[in-house]
């Protein structure tokens, strides 16, 4: 039964891709196509839920693939519903049938990656997914999309090479080896070989997951895709990369501490750079892409904690820390999928209706779309990991585990301390980034004419983010009861405190209940204390001169303090150019403010490498003088060298 659900999922994706090419004068083809995709998503979701709920069923997927398969299914469902209302707005920009085909192949690739039983199938599916994603990125065939697509394609091929060599190294060169056989051969490898394979796999999967320093492509590529695809790229494909890394970890007989520390370090670096760039970013979708880097960094750092604990002698304390970090990985994978795809849907809607992704040109949308803005507010609070939404409770487990780590022996306690401080800063920056996102896009006055009259929203544009927000509320209330049921934490009933270690307890029902009760008291208090006198709408305090939207702070202005405080890291540059128009009067002048932020890694990692390569190429060029005799000499020398080495 589960197997047939999986087959149905694949079949509907393939059928939908073919259906998309049936010509029709109305939206009928488009709707049927995405209806088929949505159905494929439902089938995948059911297959996953069934496997998780009844693992003994015939054909049930193992736990980890089932979890990720479910995320792919849910993502496909939401993105397809969204596409029904979203893509017709872009009829002239995209070739809809081809886009639908790329979308279907992309999802088929992701589903196949999760289900793949052997090295070769995994690699082929991975490549199908990656290449289909390339066509999603370049879908609008604009100059910037093509550039982003090229960068993406180069990075993904480097990553693929690393993954392929890493897996084949573990499998001892046997491409058809199934996963148990890979684990078998890997157990005979020497520690240096294992270490090389580990680093290769970390680079490969890490480059797909957007880990620093292989993240450069992500903030360019993800925002360029149409928004229903961006949601899947950021919300789901990054999770598939995580899945690949988890699968390959299971082949290693043991992972030495330095490699675990490397995972933690890369994770924290990614989280920091992601959050910092999200805080100073002005492009709505690119901000979300940076935040994906941050969140994947947090997940990888927690994964590193689990690996590090496994590499050390075990104690009750380390077991509690590792359990907490593992719980965070699971919860945050789910929560990040929910809020990030929801926010990408919302960003797509805003961009489609206002024709801009620039936060500096938005504003005032909350007055036009009250309900939609409430949904986005909930998603933004969730992205900022604030209570009472699900993300907070996931991050709570992680923070609490690190705080438990303070009781570890000396060097480890300081590691836990540094991690807690870093994650505190990352959390603070992401709160900054998402309060900036919501307040500059939705609050105050519209900063451009398009944002003034954005039009109305169809249900298909509102439902997917709404589902995300509701699910995040559910994931806060149900996460801990579910954890208790699988033994990851302990609680007496679903409403009582969940304890992850002595002295560390949390209760989502209590938190939500307290907040709701306090809100109720304040509402009632207002009705009791304040006479029902009306509210007068007046002008904003303007110091006597009429206010215009241009006087409002933009997103750029909002982030100015962060750009200033972290100027050495975001490489902020600000220049005020004054050119006098009349020579006699210095006050009549044209003034221009130039400012920029740049990528630290591009300047100090990629540019030196490319400069080195170019210099090497230039040095080589001097050999290429075009003199035939010289080439003959080279060949002779090469022949002699080969003979010397061979004999």
């Amino acid at each position: 039964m589960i197997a047939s659900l999986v087959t149905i999922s694949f079949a509907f994706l393939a059928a939908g891709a073919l259906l998309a090419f049936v010509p029709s004068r109305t939206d009928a083809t488009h709707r049927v196509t995405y209806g088929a995709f949505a159905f494929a998503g439902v089938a995948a979701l059911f297959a996953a839920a069934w496997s998780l709920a009844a693992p003994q069923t015939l054909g049930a997927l193992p736990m980890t693939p089932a979890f990720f398969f479910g995320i792919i299914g849910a993502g496909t469902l939401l993105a397809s519903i969204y596409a029904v209302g979203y893509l017709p707005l872009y009829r002239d920009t995209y070739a809809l049938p081809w886009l639908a085909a790329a979308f279907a192949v992309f999802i088929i690739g992701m589903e196949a990656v999760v289900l793949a039983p052997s090295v070769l199938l995994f690699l082929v599916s991975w490549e199908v997914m990656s290449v289909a994603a390339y066509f999603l990125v370049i879908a609008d065939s604009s100059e910037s999309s093509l550039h982003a697509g090229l960068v993406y394609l180069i990075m993904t091929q480097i990553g693929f090479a690393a993954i392929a060599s890493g897996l084949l190294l573990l499998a001892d060169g046997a491409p058809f080896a199934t996963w148990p056989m890979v684990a078998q051969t890997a157990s005979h490898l020497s520690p240096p070989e294992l270490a090389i394979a580990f680093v290769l796999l970390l680079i490969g999967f890490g480059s797909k997951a957007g880990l620093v320093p292989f993240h450069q492509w992500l903030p360019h590529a993800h925002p360029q895709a149409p928004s229903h695809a961006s949601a899947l790229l950021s919300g789901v494909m990054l999770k598939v990369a995580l899945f690949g890394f988890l699968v390959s970890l299971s082949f290693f007989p043991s992972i030495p501490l330095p490699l675990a520390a490397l995972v933690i370090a890369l994770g924290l670096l990614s989280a920091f750079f992601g959050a910092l760039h999200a805080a100073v970013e002005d492009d709505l979708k690119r901000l979300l892409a940076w935040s994906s880097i941050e969140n994947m960094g947090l997940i990888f750092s927690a994964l590193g904690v689990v690996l590090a604990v496994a590499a050390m002698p075990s104690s009750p304390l380390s077991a509690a820390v590792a359990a907490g970090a593992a719980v965070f990985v699971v919860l945050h994978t789910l929560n990040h999928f929910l809020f990030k795809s929801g926010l990408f849907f919302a960003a797509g809607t805003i961009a489609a209706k206002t024709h801009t992704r620039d936060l500096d040109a938005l504003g005032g949308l909350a007055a036009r779309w009250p309900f939609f803005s409430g949904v986005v507010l909930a998603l933004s609070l969730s992205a900022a990991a604030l209570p009472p939404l699900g993300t907070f409770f996931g991050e709570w487990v992680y923070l609490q585990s690190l705080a438990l780590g303070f009781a570890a022996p000396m060097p480890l306690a300081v590691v836990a301390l540094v991690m807690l401080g870093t994650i505190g800063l990352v959390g603070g920056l992401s709160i900054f980034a998402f309060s900036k996102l919501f307040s500059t896009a939705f609050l105050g006055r519209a900063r451009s004419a398009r944002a003034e009259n954005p039009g109305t929203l169809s249900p298909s544009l509102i439902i997917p983010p709404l589902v995300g927000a509701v699910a995040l509320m559910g994931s806060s209330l149900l996460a801990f009861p579910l954890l208790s049921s699988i033994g990851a934490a302990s609680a007496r009933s679903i409403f009582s405190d969940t304890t992850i270690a002595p002295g560390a307890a949390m209760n989502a029902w209590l938190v939500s209940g307290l907040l709701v009760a306090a809100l109720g008291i304040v509402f009632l208090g207002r009705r009791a204390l304040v006479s029902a006198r009306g509210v007068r709408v007046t002008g904003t305090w303007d110091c006597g001169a009429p206010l215009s939207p241009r006087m409002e702070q933009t997103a750029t202005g909002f982030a100015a303090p962060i750009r200033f405080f972290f100027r050495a890291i975001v490489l902020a540059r600000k220049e005020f150019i004054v050119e006098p128009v009349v020579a006699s009067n210095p006050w009549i002048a044209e003034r221009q403010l130039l400012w920029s932020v740049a990528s630290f890694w591009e300047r100090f990692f990629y540019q030196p490498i490319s400069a080195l390569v170019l210099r090497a190429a230039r040095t080589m060029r001097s050999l290429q003088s075009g003199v035939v005799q010289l080439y003959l000499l080279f060949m002779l020398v090469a022949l002699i060298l080969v003979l010397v080495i061979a004999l």
Partner: protein
Amino acid sequence: MNLSSLTMLLAESAAVMLAAPLVVGTVHLVKARFQNRRGASIVQPYWALASLLRKEMTVPEHSSWVFRFVPYVVLATTIVLAVVVPSAGIGAWPAAASNIFLVAALATLGSVFLALGGMDTGSTFGNMGANREMTLVALAEPALLIVLATLAFFAGSANLDGIVAFFAAAPWRASMLMALPTLLALLLVVLAENARYPVDNPATHLELTMVHEAMVLEYSGPYLAALEYASALRLTAFGSLFMNIVFPFGIATVGTGVEMLAVGVLSLVLKLGFFALLIGSLESLLVKMRFYRMQEYFTLAFLIAFAGAVLAFAHTF
């Protein structure tokens, strides 16, 4: 008759919520005396709130539902913060309610909504206050988390009730000596979280230097009353947390005699009085720092908190 959880909860919530304007009144009085003024009576804030409640409300034309929603959320989160933080007594709440990270997140949630209110005015003053507030939140977060986690490490318990119970049981001088840097960092964070000197000037009349006051600039009448009260309540909540750790005396516990509750409330009033004196004196003796030097302040707070944590680790091994 022994103290039940419910009695304790109601009594200490009532004590904190009633005392909040008094704390602000005392701070004002202390500052007035430092300035050689006679100053208003310490009950003046109650009258100010009462008159705000009777006034008509005005709402700026370019605002949305968020602007009207903000006072409710800010006040509600602050009330939750104030009732779960140990004040007159401990033990009334389940352990999860006063978890350190929850308390930090609730404080942040209030700040975020306050900033949203400032952004929903369409005026640069509100905007400026909002982005400054969010910057302060972002920079204060590492020090705040480290301080709270270090206190939890001392106490072996991640909830504030457990932390206060630990300091109440430990010998005072030894535990203070051990926790000195951590408590100093806590004070720095508390000053920042409550928009006090040297981070923000709560009494300024110049919009350009405001943080908290700039965000509430457009609020009037009952909404302003709610936000002013929330800010007083937040100061009181952080004050009772700080004082209960520094002077962990006379704290009632659930299960002891009812008379302990009276002792608890009385000592809370004394502690808050001392806290108001401390804040008032600090605000009279310190100068406000430039906003663009705030990273120095928070780096200092972070380093002190870090040193406090390392000292704590070294002490135990």
